[in-house]
C-alpha cells in the first residue's frame, strides 16, 4: 500500500486488457457491461471501495471493443488510471433513468451486436433488451474466465505480494496461539497484523477455528482454545485486488503431541503431495478429487481447489461439481489455492492450503508459510 490511492501499474493493466480484448474477440463479444468488481478491476485497473460479501449486480464498468475505451462508474478520479479520462467516468446514481441514459450515450455501445454481462438481476434482464434492441445479450463470464484464469507475469508478482502479506499476518497470529485464546481474538489479531502491513481488506474473515470440522463461527461457537486442541487457520488478504490465501493447522501446545495427532498431520501431508502432483498441465481437475479418494479421505463440501487472482477464478474444483472437474483441464499459468483437509474420528481436522502455479512441468508452490511439525514455531 502507498500513501496515496493509486491505480494498478501500467504493465499490469496492459497485460490484462490485452487478454480481455483477445477474449472478447474470441467469443465474439462487442461490449462488456460489468457488475462484478473483480472483472471491473481486471479491465480498468482502478481501485474502488471494498465491501464484504456479494453485491447486487449493477453496471459499474463498460468496455467497448470498437472504440477500445473503458467507461467506469466513479464520482471522482482518485485511483482511476489516466487512460480512463474524465469523459469516461460517470458519477454514482440511484436513478435507473440516469443510468440507462448514460449507457445509451456511450459511443459504440448502441451499435454493439453482442453485449456481454457478468451477471444480471431480473430488472436489468428486462431493461437491457429495451435499451439495446439490436443487441444479443450474452453471458460474458466464459470469456472473462478465459482471460483471467491464465496469469500474466505481472499478476504473479501481485499474487505473490498478497501471499507474503497473508503469510506474515498469519505468522503473527500463530505466535499468539495459547490455551485460553478465542477464535474471535485470533481473527482480530490477524486483521490487525494485516492492516499494520498496509493491507486493510481481508479475503476471508473466518481466519481460525478450533479442533473440529470447520464451520462458520457464530456467537455461540466462537470457541476458546485448550492445550490439546488443533487450530486451523484460513488466512486470506486482498492486496492490490489480488487474493493471497494460506491455510495451516497448528497444535495449541506444540510439545507433547500424541501419535494420533502426528498421524493426522502425516495424512494431510500425503494428501497435499498428491494434490500438488495432480496440478499438471493437461490433466483434468478431477485428479484433485481423486487425490482425496486415494488417501481415503471424504471430500469436504467446500472447494478443494479454486483459481486465485482477483477473487476466485476458474477453475473451482468441488465435490458437488464432478462433471465440471472431469471436463476442465489444467493449463500452465493457472494459479490454484489447493486445500488438503483431513479429519479423524475425534472430529479433529488438519488443513493445508497453498497457492500452486501450474507450469509446463511440475507445479510450483508459491506459499512459503511454515507448517507444523517440519518448521520452527513462528
Amino acid at each position, binding site marked *: 500500500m502507498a500513501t496515496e490511492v493509486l491505480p494498478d501499474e501500467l504493465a499490469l493493466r496492459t497485460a490484462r486488457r490485452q487478454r480481455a480484448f483477445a477474449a472478447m474477440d474470441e467469443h465474439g463479444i462487442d461490449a462488456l457491461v460489468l457488475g462484478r468488481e473483480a472483472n471491473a478491476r481486471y479491465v480498468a485497473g482502478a481501485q474502488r471501495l471494498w465491501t464484504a*460479501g456479494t453485491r447486487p449486480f449493477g453496471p459499474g464498468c463498460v468496455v467497448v471493443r470498437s472504440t477500445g475505451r473503458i467507461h467506469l462508474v466513479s464520482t471522482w478520479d*482518485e485511483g482511476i488510471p489516466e487512460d480512463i479520462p474524465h469523459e469516461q467516468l460517470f458519477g454514482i446514481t*440511484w436513478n435507473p433513468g440516469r443510468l440507462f441514459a448514460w449507457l445509451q450515450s456511450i459511443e459504440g455501445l448502441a451499435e454493439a451486436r453482442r453485449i456481454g454481462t457478468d451477471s444480471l438481476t*431480473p430488472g436489468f434482464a428486462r431493461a437491457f433488451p429495451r435499451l439495446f434492441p439490436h443487441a444479443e445479450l450474452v453471458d460474458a*463470464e466464459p470469456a472473462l474466465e478465459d482471460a483471467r484464469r491464465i496469469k500474466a507475469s505481472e499478476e504473479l508478482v501481485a499474487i505473490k505480494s498478497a501471499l507474503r502479506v497473508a503469510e506474515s499476518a498469519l505468522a503473527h497470529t500463530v505466535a499468539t496461539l495459547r490455551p485460553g485464546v478465542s477464535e474471535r481474538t485470533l481473527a482480530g489479531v490477524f486483521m490487525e497484523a494485516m492492516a499494520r502491513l498496509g493491507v486493510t481488506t481481508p479475503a*476471508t*474473515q473466518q481466519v481460525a477455528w478450533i479442533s473440529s470440522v470447520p464451520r462458520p463461527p457464530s456467537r455461540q461457537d466462537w470457541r476458546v482454545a485448550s492445550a490439546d486442541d488443533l487450530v486451523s487457520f484460513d488466512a486470506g488478504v486482498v492486496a492490490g485486488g489480488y487474493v493471497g490465501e494460506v491455510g495451516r493447522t497448528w497444535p495449541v501446545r506444540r510439545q507433547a503431541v500424541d501419535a494420533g495427532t502426528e498421524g493426522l498431520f502425516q495424512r494431510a501431508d500425503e494428501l497435499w503431495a498428491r494434490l500438488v502432483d495432480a496440478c499438471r498441465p493437461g490433466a483434468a481437475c478431477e485428479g484433485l478429487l481423486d487425490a482425496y479418494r486415494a488417501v481415503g479421505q471424504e471430500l469436504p463440501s467446500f472447494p478443494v481447489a479454486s483459481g486465485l487472482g482477483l477473487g476466485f477464478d476458474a477453475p473451482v474444483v468441488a465435490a458437488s461439481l464432478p462433471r465440471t472437474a472431469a471436463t476442465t483441464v489444467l493449463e500452465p499459468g493457472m494459479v490454484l489455492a489447493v486445500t488438503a483437509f483431513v479429519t479423524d474420528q475425534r472430529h479433529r481436522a488438519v488443513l493445508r492450503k497453498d497457492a500452486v502455479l501450474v507450469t509446463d512441468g511440475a507445479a510450483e508452490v508459491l506459499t512459503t508459510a511454515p507448517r507444523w511439525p517440519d518448521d520452527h514455531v513462528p
Partner: protein
Amino acid sequence: MQRDRRIRLAAAMAEHAVDALVLLGNSNVAYATGARWPLSDPGRANIERPVAVVVAEDDDPHLFTTFPELGLLDLGLPEDHVHGPLYLDFDEGARDLARFLAELLPPGARVAIDELPGAVRRHCASCFADGGPASADDVVGSAKLVKTPDELGFLRRALAITEQAIAPTQAALVPGMRQNELTASFLRAAFDLGADANVLDPIWQVMPDRLADGPWTTHGDIACPLLTTERVLERGDVLWVDTGISYAGFASDFGRTWIVGASPTPRQEAQFRAWREIVDAVLEVTRAGATAADLTRAARDAASGERQPWMAHFYLAHGLGIDSAEPPFIGTDLGDAYDERQVLAAGTVLVLEPLVWEDGIGGYRAEEVVVVTEEGTISLTDYPYDPYGH
C-alpha cells in the same frame, strides 16, 4: 426472530404475488434463514455463497451451504431442508438448481430471484414464468423495511460493538499515525468485542479545506469516501470517519468528524452546531407517516446557504439493518417527487448523514442512527462528538 421474519416474508410474497424466492445475495440469505457466517471478499463470495429457497406454504426455508452442519445445529432447520452447496456460476450447479425447483414447485409457480448469473439464465429459464422471474430484492426489501423488537436488539448490539471498538481507536489517534493503523486498531477491537466481520474498508478520509484541493469529481462537489492508505496523519487534519461491522447478520454504521491532535477552531465548532441543527430539524419531522420529502425539506430549511446539506452522490438518510445501506434511501437523485411517495413506517431504522461544508474552511459530517416510531424517533447510539461540542 426467524418466525417473525417468516411472517413478514410471507406477507411480502403475497403482496408481490410470488410463490417462491430463490436467494443468492448474502444478506437476503441471512435474512431469510438466520444463517450467520463471516462475509468474504466479493470475488470469493460470488462463488462460495449460501443459497436459500423460500416457498410460500412452507414454514422453513431451504438452505444450500458448504457448511451443512451449520443449518442443522444452529438454525433448527429440518434435515431435508439443508443441502450441500450450489455453485450457480457453473452450468452443473445451475442444472442442479433447476432440477431441485422442478421437483419442489408445482408447474406455473411464480418464482422471484435476486440475481441471474449466466448459468442460471441458461438452465433455469423453465423455472420462471414467461417474461422472466420477479425481483426477489423487492420482496425481501419490503419485508425487512420494518425491524422487529428482536432485530432491533441485535442491531443495537452491532452498533455498540462498533462504538466500543471506535473508542480506543479514537483515543490512540495522534499526529504521525498512519490511516491504516487506525484500521488495525479498529478491526482488532471489533473482533475482540464479538464482530463476525468487517463490512467495508474503514474510511479515515483527510478532508481538504477547499474542494479544489480534493480530487476532480463528476458533479463538482465533495469526493467521499476516499480510500485508506498508509498516509501519515498530521496535526490539524480533519478526518471524516465512516465504518461498520456485521454481527449476527446485522450491519452497523458509524460516522463522525475528528481532528488530529487539535481542538476545533471556533469556525469548525460552528459547523458542528450547524450540523446538529440540521439533524434536530430532521428528527423533529421524522415519525411514522412522514414522507421522505418531509425530511429533505427540513434539512434544506435548516441549512444556511444554497448548498444541499448532504452528499450529492448519496443521500440525506438511508436504511440500516441487514445491509449497511438499504432502503429507504432519502434525498437521492431520484428526486423530490420520488421522496414525496416514500412514507416512513414505525420500525424503520434510519442513518441520517447530513453535512456542513464551507469552501475554504472545510466541513463537518457525522451519522445519527435512529429507529422511527409512531411518535418520532429513538436514538440507537450515544457515541460522543469529541473533539466537537464543548
